[in-house]
């Protein structure tokens, strides 16, 4: 007679030490898991909800300036250092981790128009309304020493924009013309003009370091090559461009912040048409800065909000605002791509998270895994209506909300009109040409319309 006995090897289910992870036998056969989709859907929904609940982007406000913050500068070698220049000519150096000002200097009389830190991080340049370019040391002067610039250059006209070369001791300013300066000389080594009298900003391409772009008051964006004697190309837009920013990871893309509420991303090789038009702001866009990863950019607007756009999306992924933040004049994305800094009219610098619901600090591996998993779940189920509606919801101040609505109605009406009487639209009067402060914003112009736009806006 044969007797069958149940036998189990304890090695299969007993762990060797108590520090080992308990072995969990699993069968991955999909027929045994009929509810996997619905379970994951629920997880995705919960993750989305939690993301919205934990979305608290505002981190800190740095106050201390006695006038509106007009420009910001990142330190290329230190994450915790930030420089800011205000409308009363004061420059402050901040320690971001401690949220405190470490140094204050009266750099100029009148506005500090631009500021840039040298690529090595040992000194910085400022320009101001007093027609001077000043070169400052990064370290504060010792006890008893006087705060004095290393070098001062007196220009012929007011400088309005400043940027430093990525690798060599060359910087560029703009004002009446675009000038390229050697740090050792007091006269520009090269000047570019192309029939316009004032430029508002100039930026070096961080990848192709010899190229630079500037925007002028005749609504144009002009590209230059430092090695050439003439400018390269010019594109004239419907309204004035305030700033441009180059993509730090993609050499030929740049985005410009325009007065017509939109941002335009261009491929510098094909300037006939923008690659993408980024809409959503309800007032002039004043500043734009790319994330160092080159995948997103942040824009500051006169409508008191900051918006974050994915580089290839027409609409924004995020909108930041607070009750007390006024017109945002300058914005920067921190060099580790985690934070956003904004300087606004009401004398404050604000520190934001780039991802509103992100958990800061060091994460344990399990936490990290969980975050990655929920991120993927959200991505997977993003098209489901319930999840979409929660993920897309953002609170917006009443004024901006109504303005947006109004704009939408206008756009729709315009579209209808355009469609219905295409041949007669030249006889239609264009939208309001008043300033945007009267609560009746001008319509962003559309292609082919003949209209005169009052583009200039006085800063402050």
């Amino acid at each position, binding site marked *: 007679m044969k007797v069958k006995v149940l036998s189990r090897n304890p090695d299969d289910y007993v762990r060797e030490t108590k520090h080992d992870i308990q072995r969990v036998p699993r069968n991955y056969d999909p027929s045994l898991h009929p509810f996997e989709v619905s379970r994951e859907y629920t997880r995705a929904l919960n993750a989305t909800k939690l993301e919205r609940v934990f979305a608290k982007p505002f981190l800190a406000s740095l106050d201390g300036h006695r006038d509106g913050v007009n420009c910001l500068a990142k330190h290329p070698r230190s994450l915790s250092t930030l420089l800011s220049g205000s409308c009363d000519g004061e420059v402050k150096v901040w320690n971001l981790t401690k949220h405190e000002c470490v140094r204050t200097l009266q750099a100029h009389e009148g506005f500090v128009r631009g500021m840039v830190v040298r690529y090595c991080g040992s000194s910085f340049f400022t320009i101001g309304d007093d027609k001077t370019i000043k070169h400052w040391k990064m370290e504060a002067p010792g006890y008893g020493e006087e705060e004095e610039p290393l070098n001062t250059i007196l220009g012929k006209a007011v400088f309005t924009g400043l940027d430093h070369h990525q690798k060599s001791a060359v910087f560029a300013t703009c004002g009446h013309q675009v000038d390229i300066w050697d740090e050792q000389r007091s006269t520009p080594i090269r000047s570019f003009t192309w029939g316009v009298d004032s430029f508002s900003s100039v930026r070096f391409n961080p*990848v192709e370091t010899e190229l630079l772009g500037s925007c002028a008051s005749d609504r144009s964006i002009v590209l230059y*090559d430092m090695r050439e004697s003439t400018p390269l190309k010019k594109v004239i837009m419907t309204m004035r461009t305030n700033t441009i920013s180059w993509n730090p990871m993609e050499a030929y893309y740049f985005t410009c912040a325009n007065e017509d509420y939109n941002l335009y991303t261009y491929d510098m090789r094909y300037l006939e048409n923008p690659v993408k038009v980024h809409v*959503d702001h309800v007032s002039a866009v004043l500043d734009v800065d790319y994330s160092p990863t080159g995948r997103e950019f942040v824009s500051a607007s006169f409508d008191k909000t900051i918006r974050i756009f994915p580089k290839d999306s027409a609409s924004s992924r995020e909108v930041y605002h607070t009750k007390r933040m006024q017109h945002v004049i300058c914005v920067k994305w921190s060099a*580790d791509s985690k934070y956003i800094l904004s300087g606004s009219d009401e004398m404050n610098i604000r520190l934001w998270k780039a991802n509103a619901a992100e958990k800061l600090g060091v994460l344990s591996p399990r936490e990290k895994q969980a975050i*990655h998993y929920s991120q993927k779940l959200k991505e997977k189920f993003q098209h489901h209506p319930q999840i979409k509606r929660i993920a897309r*919801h953002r609170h917006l101040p009443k004024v901006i909300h109504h303005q947006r609505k109004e704009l939408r109605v206008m756009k729709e009406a315009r579209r209808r009109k355009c469609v219905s009487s295409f041949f007669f639209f030249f006889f239609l009067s264009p939208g309001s040409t008043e300033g945007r402060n009267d609560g009746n914003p001008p319509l962003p112009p559309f292609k082919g319309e003949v209209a005169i736009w009052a583009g200039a806006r006085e800063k402050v």
Partner: protein
Amino acid sequence: MAKVSKKNSHKKKLMVSCGDPAISEGDQQLLYEDEEEEQGGMDRAEEETMSSEEDEGEDERKRQKLLEGIRSLGGKRKKALGERSEAAGQMSEFSVNPDGGPGKVQLSDLIGSLEKTPAVPAKSKKQLKNLQRSKKTIESPLSKQETERIQRDMAFQKAASEVSRWDGVITQNQRAEQLLFPLNRDPAGPRPVERLVVGWKARTPLEQEIFALLSANKQPLIDPILTPAEEASVKAMSLEEAKIRRAELQKARALQSYYEAKARRERKIKSKKYHKVQNKAKRKEFLKHFEEMVQMDPAVALQELNKMELARMQERMTLKHQNSSKWAKSKAIMAKYDEEARKAMQQQLEMNKELTQRLITPLNDDDDEEEEKEEAAADEADMLPDFVNDAVDGRDASNPWMKGKLSAEPAQQQLSDALTEAAQASVSEEEECQAGETEEEALLGEFNSRRKLHQAQESDAAGGVLPEEVTEDRAAAVESEASDSDDSCLLESPSISRGRENVLKETKATDHSERSALLEERLMRIRTVEDLELLPHEPSDEPSQPPTTKAPPSEEKHLGKRKKKGIELKEVLTKETKLIKVPFTPTVTDSEDPEAKIDQRGLIKEAFAGDDVISDFLKDKRRKEDEGKSKVIDLTLPGWGDWGGVGLKPPKRKRRRFRVKSAPPPPRKDQHLPSVIISEKRNTSVSLHQVHSLPFPFENHAQFESCIRSPLGRAWNTERTVKKVTKPRVVTQLGAIIDPMAEEELLKNNKKVVASS
């Protein structure tokens, strides 16, 4: 010293002025010498009259004025140009002397002396001669603006081309599954020992002693891990390259073995049919290949062509595939009754045709192709028995049913049909209209897409001629519809189509708006999870567009009118379809022939002769209705409170008690719509959670569904899969500064490209 020559009116002054710079400076007017000579005579005559009037000691200014006035009297006004020339006496032989010279120096003068000098190379001499001969004026330089523009253009081209070298890196980064920032990270894993050793110093006395010994004996302090030869070999073939190479080799070997096995298997197959098919495929392949060969290698192609020609000749001689063989004759007898036999014959004929047809290639410059063709056609006509025409040709281009595609012709058929019918039976007009419409609509609707495909194919084949035909067809279709339906139909059809367009537009617009907006911005602030539930389900923020759909009302009208006429749809539907006799088409039809198209519909009818679509539909509907009906559920348990077993039934009382009749379902929506089945399975409460339209990156529903169906979590996947699947797209290092892309990335990318290729 500069000598200033002056006008000779005041001779004494001239004498004084010789070699006197002070006076020459005072004198403003300087004249050319030759000019002086030209005017000399006239001036002198005038001066005498003048000097009589004027006194000496006049101031210079007056005199000059006068001179000018005089000169203007002469008629032509010469421009008073001054020249500062050099003293003739001090001139060197190389410079031009303005005093006694003949005036302008010509190029020929210079060249004349050039011939004599031996130092000038012959080439430049020649060039100069050429220059002298050609009397063309040199073009004036471009204006400043234009030169600048050209310069700018050139500079821009240069910059653009320079920037374009980043294309590869950028596209690669866009496609990459994961991007790691900062870009120039140190590679993970253990560092090479050499690098660690560099920073290490001997500290303990023992170590120091050992090092002292080593250095005394001239031993290498840091022993190199690799010899130079090894390093070279490592450089020559990196690990990645080696891996790639090995993988390639493996793949090649595997493929070879597969191929061998396949060949062996195929050789063993005895089936004749298989080989026939195989041969046919090969032939086709060969033909395809041949066309390429004609262009690439004409000599070889010509040889092949000759071979083919030979085969053709043999075929024609043997009459192998013609209908004269024994088998063919037997089949010809059977063909009257047997479909299979008919088909076989057809095939054979086709084969014959194929083989006997002369190939038309660019190499073949015979111009008797047409003759050949005609011959072949004549042959075929001769060979073809009459009854073959009865059947439907398998490879007929105009037959949609065999191809699985519907051409545009049916519309025309409908037209002709409608016309004939209208002429034939005026009594059954309305019924015909209804039936025809439903049938046609069903058919057309089903094969709409296919027809489009077919049309595209046709247009491709026939080039630019066909589009006109197509449009004509369309027009014909519209007409046919109009004629098919009665007046009301005719009136409403455009409105319906317009309505549809509107609907389409609307959906497009909504789609667009949905896609474009990433955020839904509202006044509501979310603080808790409960708030999330309160969010409105529909995007109410969107501007509510007035409903522009006009299709439903018009359709309703349509129905209403029909009802007025008093036609019961049910009756119409249940009536038998009227059989229409249509002459059969000949088997060999030319698709270009317009007359052949007329009989398309007949073909369709014939193909569906056996099917009764309508009754099938009605049956289907009835079944659906029955499924939905309430059923009696028997809950009796045998043996419960009673005896149970084989042959024993639960008592009647119990059965009656435990048989439960479920509540009747709500009335069906298609209760009063005889020609419609509305599924009741759709659950509106679920549809709130479902995706309504296909999201952007997906191309079809299957893709999207499979994406949703595959789980990501660790409950359903192995650890490794989970890691792979949940890999984030962008990874940044905590507290690390991300520098802009540097030139090194370009080099890295180039290396990668080289390695992968």
